[in-house]
């Protein structure tokens, strides 16, 4: 069995089954679509687990350039595994709609991300890197609004730019070292900086992060569930592979945990709150990669695994609210728990998981990163990560469920007729079970990690008690601020972020430049037309019907000139 799967994987690397399968979706009869689509990630997952650790496949391209289209090791396998699970539940969640475009885009996007984590060289990585960009953008376009179209364009620019930097870095690296192997790199020369920056855009480093909070809330209901899983975690995987132990990543990651949460507190669009929250969670992973010890890398991989599930669950629950209530603005929501009790319960499981409450998934993964930070005596990083953990408790732990489902009864809560569609509930139920399952019984997740976990165990009394103190007192602070009326009300508004610079002043300069260029081009064109007019007049006079060259020639004259030319040829031939 293993051998035949190895043979198959030589020409069909993990992930490509989904990419090719996505192309067949519109051709299938209606009844066959759902089972076919759900089968794809299951088969893909089986393929990944039947391949032995250490399996690689090389593809000689031209010259001495060899691509490594498949590389299975602990790091690629755990990301490949969670990507398949995420694809399965995202497809299941999306079954309430019958938009083939979204299914095709979502499945191909998942497949591209899976293929990328199994790529053994930078060029193969680049190809799938860009494929994730061009497939995922359709999940935003599929909203089919003017605003979504504009957002999708901005999203695509950021994603493609990230890929171009990666390619440029890969090419320079090949010239410098003669190798395109995707292995651990030392940040220093131009090539590694370009690759680092390419990863950094996709990982939403501070100041490079705005594409995410811009695009994810504008995607379709199912689109944002797909989007939340793959792109940024592909970047996390790539940083963990290429730049583990790069100390610069510690301040970057720590800033990512703390910076976006201020925006999450005052943002009104709850899917945008989740995007800021996603950014904050990526910060924990980036900091873990920067710390770089085996425990920290294990923690990063485990946290990515747990995070894809609970973040997907939160996006699913907010998608269900948007689907039923027609809005996802906190200022318009509240009191939905009576109408949507299951969605409420699943959302709370997601909130407890992301807050890293003991017995939920975030606790068993985030604790590894915090322990690694403490063991390395990164005091400031540790304190900021702790601060950010209290912050997570606010925006994702309390704000999301409280303002959507509780707070005050809203008009939306009167209008909503009932629960989310069954496929949505089923998907949320599966993910919520996994969140609790991992929290209660983390051993299978720990066994999957890239390094041996040793005797690490998250449930020791110090850790459980101190974490409960942090979270419960955060909740108490929420109650206190509500009581003294200092908790900010949810307001219809736009909250500015650093992309303001691009969208206002830079856009204004670009508009001015375009306008001025247009004026210049118009003047040039008029001048050219005037010149062309006089040139045409001259040609008309000389070669036109009435011109000297336009006069009809007598047949005799023509015959004479033809004879002279032919005679000339003969003479030349004779002389050769």
């Amino acid at each position, binding site marked *: 069995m293993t051998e035949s799967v190895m043979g198959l994987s030589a020409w069909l690397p993990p992930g490509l089954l989904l990419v090719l399968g996505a192309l067949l979706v519109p051709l299938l009869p209606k009844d066959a679509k759902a089972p076919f689509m759900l089968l794809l990630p299951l088969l893909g997952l089986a393929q990944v687990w039947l391949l032995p650790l250490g399996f690689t496949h090389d593809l000689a391209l031209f010259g001495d350039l060899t691509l490594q289209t498949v590389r299975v090791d602990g790091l690629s396998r755990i990301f490949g595994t969670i990507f398949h699970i995420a694809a399965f539940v995202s497809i299941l969640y999306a079954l309430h709609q019958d938009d083939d475009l979204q299914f095709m885009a979502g499945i191909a996007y998942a497949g591209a991300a899976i293929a990328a984590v199994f790529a053994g060289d930078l060029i193969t990585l680049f190809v799938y890197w860009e494929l994730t960009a061009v497939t995922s953008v359709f999940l935003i376009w599929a909203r089919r609004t003017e605003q979504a179209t504009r957002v999708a364009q901005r999203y695509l620019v950021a994603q493609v730019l990230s890929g171009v930097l990666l390619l440029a870095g890969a090419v320079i690296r090949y010239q410098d070292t003669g190798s395109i192997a995707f292995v651990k790199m030392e940040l220093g020369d131009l090539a590694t900086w370009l690759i680092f920056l390419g990863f950094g855009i996709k990982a939403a480093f501070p100041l490079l992060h705005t594409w995410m909070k811009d695009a994810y809330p504008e995607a379709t209901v199912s689109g944002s569930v797909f989007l939340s899983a793959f792109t940024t975690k592909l970047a996390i995987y790539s940083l963990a592979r290429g730049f583990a132990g790069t100390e610069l990543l510690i301040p970057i990651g720590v800033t990512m945990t703390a910076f976006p949460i*201020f925006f999450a507190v005052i943002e009104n669009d709850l899917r945008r709150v989740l995007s800021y929250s996603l950014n904050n969670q990526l910060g924990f992973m980036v900091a873990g990669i920067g710390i770089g010890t085996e425990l920290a890398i294990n923690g990063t991989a485990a946290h990515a695994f747990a995070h894809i599930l609970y973040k997907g669950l939160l996006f699913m629950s907010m998608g269900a609210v948007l689907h039923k209530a027609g809005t996802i603005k906190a200022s318009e929501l509240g009191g939905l728990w009576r109408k949507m009790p299951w969605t409420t319960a699943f959302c709370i499981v997601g909130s407890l998981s992301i807050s890293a409450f003991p017995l939920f998934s975030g606790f068993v993964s985030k604790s590894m990163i915090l322990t690694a930070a403490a063991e390395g005596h990164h005091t400031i990083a540790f304190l900021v990560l702790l601060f950010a953990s*209290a912050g997570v408790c606010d925006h994702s732990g309390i704000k999301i469920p409280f303002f959507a489902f509780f707070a*005050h*009864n809203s008009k939306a809560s009167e209008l909503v007729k009932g629960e989310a569609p069954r496929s949505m509930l089923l998907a949320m139920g599966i993910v919520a079970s996994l969140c609790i399952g991992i929290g209660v019984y983390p051993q299978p997740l720990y066994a999957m990690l890239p390094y041996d976990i040793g005797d690490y165990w998250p449930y020791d009394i110090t850790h459980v008690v*101190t974490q409960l103190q942090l979270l419960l007192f955060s909740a108490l602070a929420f109650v206190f601020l509500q009581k003294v009326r200092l908790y*900010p009300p949810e307001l219809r508004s736009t909250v500015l972020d650093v992309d303001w610079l691009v969208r206002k002043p830079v856009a204004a300069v670009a508009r001015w430049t375009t306008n001025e260029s247009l004026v210049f081009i118009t003047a040039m064109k008029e001048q050219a037309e005037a010149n062309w007019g006089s040139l045409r007049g001259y040609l008309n006079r000389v070669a036109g019907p009435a011109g000297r060259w336009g006069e009809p020639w007598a047949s005799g004259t023509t015959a004479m000139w033809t004879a002279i030319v032919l005679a000339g040829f003969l003479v030349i031939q004779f002389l050769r």
Partner: protein
Amino acid sequence: MDHTPESPAADGGHADHGTPSVGPNTTRLIIRILIAVCVVVSLADFAYTKHGHFAFEQLPAFNSLYGFASYVFLVLTATQLRRILMRNEAYYD
């Protein structure tokens, strides 16, 4: 500038809300339970030998205080940021 900090959302701002979605007795009960659990987990620090990597972690109920202070600091700072960062909903349109 198309707004003043005092009236950030020209289209009405806060939507008109109805009654609380959870009754006052239930809310009171939840808050009392929360306070009780907070007291218990803070006092729990005296009941076991704490291990940690930093000296400050040895302070009794350090995470309680740190969590509360972090949360209040975060929310109040973010509220003040609204003065600078908040614009009308249609700002970018």
